[in-house]
């Protein structure tokens, strides 16, 4: 039983810039803090370029001193379930050993926006969550001061205790919680935050809270969910994207032992929803999966069946001969400068579609009862998922409950909710609880892929080797009239603003393949192309690749605005911040000061994305057979004033770098006759232990606000690796994935 006692309303109602904190009593003498932060978060969100976000927080302090912090965002391995509560616990001055973290379900009313994406957790939550903790601490101190009849200013806190040193009195937070619950909560913007020098939790290596359950095999993930009376489903979709179902031998499949039902599904046209297919529901997933082998389906594959990776490449080469369909940026007069430049370098770069291949395949468990849907899903984006389910079932969104499970990897795949719509529809049709689980082949062949892309570069150098003109004709993809998701490029892409004469243009090709965000969307591809071509220019100019980059950045601090449609001070590119990480990574890697054996080389690259500044050096060895071995990676990073959890930060950065190396060495999706050719890890190769080099990570801290690092660490490693291969072999990688057959040497 919970009673609301002290409430401080914002002066200007719900639209106030100020959030408010509500304190309530908990049964048994505890304190509940509920912070509603529409405004603080909106300010932070606006800074981050995400207007829709709002942010609420729940903290419970029980009479035994146990502090429970509700983690509202999905955990996909990024460490947010540990990191966000650290922010509250720090300012609360809690004893971290007495902090428990509880995963919330989807509840927009209670929590505002709940999602995992864009490396946004840190920039959105850094200050608001600390304010919640600080307000709680202030109330506990006030409760102690009231109890003891002393001045609050004479009290101090440490590790879950309030002390009054003059009288030698002390009390635990648990003892003070009941009294604190009777006080009026302070205005969040009025509380004093700690001097970072006094941090005791933030900045310390904190182990991930779920690890004890992970290492003992406890059920945590979507695939582990069990509900009473549950059946198991597989869903066969058309291998060709956009294909329609004609008919299937569902009667024959239904007659197989253990199969409960098999039926045709007519869906819509949006890939992020229910599409045409055939559902098989059985007593076990294995039975359903075996029954699928007997399934015979006739599809109408048009109009996607004519598309292929080869046809895209051929069309891109044709388009490159023409002027770009659209100008993205035009500075000065690049055409004239190319005509008068001492040296002009041209090169075509391309990269493939990439899958997410979360190790836990897409799955969802659904119970549809009395017009209401209850779902358990490993999702990065439960809100839109609930909307899609409501639309698929024709029920109100308020009748959809989503339980967010831990996700066995996300990488952006689980921002889409197609699997939730499928599970809900199948469960409704068979009128029983259903767990839908995709096979690896389903997962590989029905993804929202990182779009492929083609860049046709031109660079002009003057007689002194200075870059005086730069152009890129970017050939990318469109879905109908719209650019395909994650297939765009900003006009601010480096080196824009640093080269006087510069032209960026874009042409598109029609695409039926669904695309979407993959860890460091756009940047994971653009970094490879741009930083590879910059390296070519450095060599053409006869300059060291580091020196050439430093010269491009210049010695003066320049703040180059980000994309016009995503205004935010944090999105602006600060040349000095990049220069600092570039110089640090060069120093740490002993750049240019080593003599390496034949077949071994070092490459350097940098990239700015998700507000983070990353410069990376790779040392790679290429065997005479062409096999590439990555020997070592050095990373210098700057993501603001504070690394919140250094233990997880290092893990994330190392993982991102290795993920990028895996993409470069072994990953690419081939489209043939409108469908995906690859089906499993034998043809799209995740990085493995024997390929994983040591990764040295160095952080620079500055006065800038802290930002995320799960994504921006990835983009530079790919060009750094390709540039290292050039240093080792003299062969330039202009197409991903890297093909060892082209790297043989004697």
């Amino acid at each position, binding site marked *: 039983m919970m009673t609301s006692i002290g409430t401080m309303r914002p002066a200007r109602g719900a639209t106030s810039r100020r959030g408010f904190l509500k304190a309530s009593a908990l049964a048994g003498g505890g304190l509940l803090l509920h912070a509603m932060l529409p405004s603080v978060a909106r300010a932070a969100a606006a800074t981050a370029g995400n207007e829709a976000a709002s942010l609420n927080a729940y903290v419970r302090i029980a009479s035994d001193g146990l502090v429970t912090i509700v983690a509202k965002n999905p955990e*996909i*391995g*990024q460490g947010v379930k540990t990191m966000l509560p650290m922010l509250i616990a720090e300012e609360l001055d809690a004893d971290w050993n007495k902090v428990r973290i509880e995963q919330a379900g989807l509840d927009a009313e209670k929590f505002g926006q709940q999602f995992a994406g864009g490396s946004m957790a840190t920039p959105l939550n850094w200050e608001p969550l600390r304010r919640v903790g600080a307000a709680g601490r202030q109330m506990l101190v006030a409760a102690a001061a009231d109890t003891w009849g002393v001045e609050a200013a004479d009290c101090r806190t440490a590790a879950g205790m309030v002390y009054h040193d003059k009288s030698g009195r002390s009390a635990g937070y648990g003892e003070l919680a009941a009294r604190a619950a009777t006080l009026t909560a302070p205005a969040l913007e009025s509380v004093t935050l700690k001097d970072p020098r006094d941090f005791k939790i933030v900045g310390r*290596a904190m*182990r*991930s809270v*779920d*690890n*004890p359950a*992970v*290492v*003992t*095999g*406890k*059920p945590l*993930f979507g*695939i*582990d969910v*069990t509900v009473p009376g549950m059946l*198991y489903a597989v869903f066969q979709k058309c291998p060709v994207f956009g294909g329609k179902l004609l008919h299937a031998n569902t009667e024959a499949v239904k007659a197989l032992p*253990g199969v409960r039902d098999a039926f045709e599904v007519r869906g819509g046209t949006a890939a992020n929803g229910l599409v045409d297919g055939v559902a098989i529901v059985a007593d*076990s*997933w*294995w039975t359903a999966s*075996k029954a699928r082998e007997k399934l015979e389906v006739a599809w109408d594959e048009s109009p996607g069946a004519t598309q292929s990776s080869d046809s895209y490449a051929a069309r891109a080469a044709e388009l490159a001969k023409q002027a770009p369909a659209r100008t993205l940026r035009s500075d000065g007069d690049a055409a004239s400068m190319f005509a008068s430049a001492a040296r002009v370098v041209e090169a075509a770069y391309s990269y493939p579609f990439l899958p997410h*291949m*979360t*190790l*836990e*395949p897409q799955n969802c468990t659904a119970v549809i009862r009395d017009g209401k849907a209850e779902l358990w899903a490993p999702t990065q984006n439960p809100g839109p998922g609930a909307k899609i389910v409501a639309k698929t079932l024709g029920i109100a969104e308020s009748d959809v409950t989503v339980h967010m499970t*831990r*996700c*066995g*990897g*996300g*990488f952006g795949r689980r921002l889409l909710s197609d699997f939730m719509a499928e599970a809900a529809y199948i469960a409704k049709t068979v009128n029983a609880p259903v767990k839908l*689980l995709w096979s*690896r082949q389903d997962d590989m062949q029905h993804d929202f892929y990182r779009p492929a892309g083609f860049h046709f570069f031109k660079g002009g150098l003057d007689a002194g080797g200075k870059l005086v003109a730069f152009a890129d004709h970017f050939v990318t993809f469109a879905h109908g009239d719209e650019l395909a998701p994650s297939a765009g490029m900003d006009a601010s892409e480096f080196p824009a603003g640093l080269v006087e004469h510069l032209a960026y243009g874009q042409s598109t090709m029609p695409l039926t393949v669904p695309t979407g965000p993959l860890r460091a969307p756009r940047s994971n591809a653009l970094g490879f192309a741009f930083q590879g071509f910059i390296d070519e220019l450095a060599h053409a100019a006869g300059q060291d690749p580091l020196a050439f980059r430093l010269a491009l950045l210049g010695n003066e601090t320049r703040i180059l605005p980000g994309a016009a449609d995503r205004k935010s001070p944090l999105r602006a590119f600060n040349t000095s911040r990049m220069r600092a990480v570039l110089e640090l990574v060069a120093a740490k890697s002993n750049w240019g000061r080593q003599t390496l054996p034949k077949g071994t080389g070092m490459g350097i690259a940098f990239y700015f994305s998700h507000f983070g500044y990353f410069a990376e050096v790779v040392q790679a060895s290429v065997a005479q057979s062409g096999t590439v071995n990555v020997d070592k990676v050095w990373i210098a990073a700057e993501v603001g004033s504070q690394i919140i959890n*250094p*233990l*997880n*930060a290092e*893990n*994330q950065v*190392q*993982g991102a770098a*290795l*993920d990028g190396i*895996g993409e470069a060495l072994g990953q690419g999706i081939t489209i043939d006759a409108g469908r995906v050719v690859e089906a*499993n*890890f034998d043809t799209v190769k*995740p*990085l*493995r*232990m*024997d390929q*994983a080099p*040591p*990764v040295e*990570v160095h952080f620079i801290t500055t006065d800038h606000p802290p930002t995320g690092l799960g994504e921006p660490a990835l983009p530079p490693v790919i060009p750094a690796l390709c540039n290292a291969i050039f240093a080792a072999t003299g062969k330039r990688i202009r197409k991903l994935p890297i093909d060892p057959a082209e790297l043989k040497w004697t």
Partner: protein
Amino acid sequence: MTSYTVAVNGTSRTVDVDEHTPLLWVLRDVLDLKGSKFGCGAGLCGACTVHLDGEPVRSCMTPIAAVGPGKVVTIEGIGANPVGKRVQAAWLEVDVPQCGYCQAGQIMSATALLAKTPRPSDKDIDDAMSGNVCRCATYIRIRAAIKKAAGMNTADAGALR
């Protein structure tokens, strides 16, 4: 349907399943041991790794009929083995997991390695662990945790140094 009696984590369990049913699905969906994971269904990722008489096997490719009287140990039971217990403790100490989905399989492979090779070289670790995919690529910490469990120097312990 056939009746099979299997020894799982020291307990004898009888299940009625089709003879081709992989051990993984017997463990997960019949015996409700959810720790062993499904990743690829083709022996390519190692997420389903369990021990059969101490040897690491891919349970997604092991039909129930092939298990016979062998002793099956899963992540739920590996803590009863002193080496397994040390490996789990090292995984916590080094803070290995990110998403955690592959880690049951990693721990099973690492335990099998250390049971045979108490002080593994980097090459031994590569050979024993390269069948286990970690999509979050926590390989650096997996290597460090294996060395820690072996009581070796862990130069790669990173932020914990």
